[in-house]
């Protein structure tokens, strides 16, 4: 084969590859448009002054920031003052969700770390039994026993309260140990043994040796447990019933779309949704590698 033939073949391949790449670029661009369309549409609606639910155009006919402001304060013409909205107190919901998320994140993270350390590093007689029981409990549909949980909370005097919500979220965290157990499993046991020879108790090993090595998994656990109350609709909607003041954002926003309200509150719903989606999206994009490791069952290496 001569050099020119070789070059011609090479350029033929290059052209082919180029064509293939152009096709891929086109497909990717079309897909990105389809995938981003609902999200950008939501953002556009949140800045729209017309309050239309199904506009013909994509961009708002009149731009405004009012939807965001109205989430927290409405202008009362009679009183000539800003008042907090009474039908949909978004600011209150935001605060509720934040409090619940922070409290349950702190408690859940502690619980998950404790359980997964015990399952991963300690060997005791009932370990296998507990692991199997945890597996079995995890297979019941989460909200199957929702009504019973409500009854229990009623007995404790905690029904429809934020404290009750924190307790339910944190109590359930005991079953979410898999990812962090997987992480602890990868820390060499020789570290424990060396410390044990030096006279450290298992308690000291946990605090002084294991926890400092586990920063990535602590951050991951704290973030996932912090994020879950923001997106939980099922349990909160059943648990809070009509106690609007104690709603979290998810339930409140859902209710804005009820037939009675949607006509007046749709753009405000969009603003509220954008407001919580932005920080959650940023956190998720940062944390994606942990998410992948958690799902594929591989250990997170940090």
């Amino acid at each position, binding site marked *: 084969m001569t050099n020119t033939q070789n070059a011609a073949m090479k350029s033929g391949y290059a052209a082919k590859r180029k064509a293939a790449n152009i096709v891929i670029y086109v497909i990717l661009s079309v897909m990105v448009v389809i995938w981003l369309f609902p999200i950008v549409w939501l953002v556009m609606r949140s800045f729209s002054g017309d309050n239309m639910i199904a506009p013909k155009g994509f961009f708002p006919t009149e731009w405004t920031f009012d939807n965001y402001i109205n989430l927290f304060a409405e202008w009362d013409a009679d009183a000539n003052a800003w008042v907090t909205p009474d039908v949909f107190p978004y600011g209150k919901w935001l605060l509720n969700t934040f409090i619940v998320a922070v409290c349950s994140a702190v408690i859940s993270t502690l619980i998950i770390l404790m359980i997964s350390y015990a399952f991963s590093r300690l060997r005791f007689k009932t370990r296998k039994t507990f692991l199997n029981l945890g597996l079995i409990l995890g*297979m019941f549909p989460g909200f199957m026993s929702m009504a019973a949980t409500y009854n229990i909370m009623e007995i404790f005097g905690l029904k429809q309260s934020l404290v009750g919500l924190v307790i339910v979220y944190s109590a359930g965290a005991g079953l979410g140990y898999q990812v962090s157990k997987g992480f602890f499993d990868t820390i060499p046991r020789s570290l424990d043994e060396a410390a044990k020879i030096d006279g450290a108790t298992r308690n000291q090993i946990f605090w002084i040796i294991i926890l400092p090595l586990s920063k990535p998994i602590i951050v991951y656990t704290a973030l996932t447990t912090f994020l879950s109350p923001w997106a939980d609709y099922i349990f909160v909607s059943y648990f809070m019933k009509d106690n609007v003041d104690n709603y979290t954002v998810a339930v409140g926003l859902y209710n804005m779309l009820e037939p009675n309200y949607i006509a007046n509150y749709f753009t405000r719903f969009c603003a509220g949704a954008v407001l919580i989606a932005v920080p*959650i999206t940023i956190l998720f994009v940062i944390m994606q590698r942990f998410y992948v490791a958690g799902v*594929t069952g591989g250990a997170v290496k940090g």
Partner: protein
Amino acid sequence: MNYLDYVQMTTGQRIAYRIKSFFTGIPGALAKLVKIIANFFVSVFGTIGRGFKNYGQRFVNGDAGTKLSYIIMGAGNLLHKQIGKGILFLASEVAYIFFMFGFGVRYISEIFCNGVVVDGVVVNGVIGNESPIYETDPLGLGKKMINRDTVDDSNQILLFFVLTVLVTIAFIAIYVTNTKSAYAVQQVAQSGKAPMGTIQELKMFLDERFHVTLMAIPVILLLIFTVLPIIFTIFVAFTNYDKNHQPPGNLYWWVGFSNFADVFYTNKMKSETFGKILLWTIIWAFFATFTNYILGIVLALMINKKGIKFKAFWRTMFVITAAVPQFVTLLVMRILLDDKGAINNMLGTNIPFLTDMSGVWPKITVILVNMWVGIPYTMLISSGLLMNIPEDLYESARIDGANAFQQFTKITFPYIFFVTTPYLITSFVGNINNFNVIYFLTAGGPNSDSYYQAGQTDLLVTWLYKLTVNSSDFNLAAVIGLLVFVICAAGSLITFNMSKASKNEEEFS
């Protein structure tokens, strides 16, 4: 089939084989589930039997203190000067006695009360008591209760009954520990050593018994807020706790397996609804899983192909859609896809995406929207795996003259398929339980008269939710919950058998 046969198959045959073996694996997995449950009970009874044997032996070999602590807990420890431990045991016994007489006995006695009169017939197995005064209905349609003041709350009785049982089990555990502890301290004393002091004993909870310290609070929380409600709900599946028997004010009672019979054949409406919903759940889970899986991998391949620029940009664009909370994106989709929604308006069409009464459009729509939701996730997961494929595999394939398509079918796809099989099955089980997509998009609708409290796109779990929230048919909801549990447990067992990770669990220890 052995490994050699498998390797010689084409990719298509391999997929067919995997799918076939998944479905043919179901009976085996169910059998295995039964076996595991049976083994569980056998081991439980074995443990109890051995426990009784040791319990008896300790009594026979015990000294006066040990024997005494079989009746008065902590006596053995107290006699051997383990004051702190002894007092704790004694206190727990006293507390348990007070608990039972002040509280527990009532609920155990009322769990099988007799005597509610329904249409003149006495019903047995009622949960709770009532002493109503009846008056005869002038139309002769049975009797009517005129006072409701003295009706028990069946809910409360059942709940406290379960609680009492859990407390009793916990107490038995403490009691057995007490006899062991008494015997242990007796042996220490007999060997001439000084028994451990309280401080020393407490220190053990930071070392040898550190697992107890770590797990006590989480386990107690789980018992009260997860195990107790689940056991309660399982009991409810065997009662008539439905919209006509709502406490407080009404009692409900045990009805045996009749709720299960209803769902399977005796009640035409419920059993037909169950059949249709189960079928749709399986169809949905199948399509939702495989469309997402295959297209997600294709997307990952496109983004990761050599020569494609701005990889991070493309990936981030899709990750953003996955990161927005699902209830937000799904509600937006619902608004967009409305009959008079923005999509129809922009296209100038009138497609009944979510409301088509025949159910065809809604079913297609939920699967399509689910692709929108799920493809970025699969892309995210398989992107990482693609980078793990050893580059020399491709190199040697290229030297052998394989083209891009052959490289995909012979290297990339088999590799990813092998690595992600457990994920595939987990997501199949996850899709059976996929509440969000269905509930936020169609809420199970469009509703149809031929369904009991459900609509055309309802899955078992959304039906369960509606039965709990809308119609208060708690007994039926509990039955559905148990059936979903059985399906998921079977599915998870298949996963568990297939995934190597479970076998390697001890590798690091």
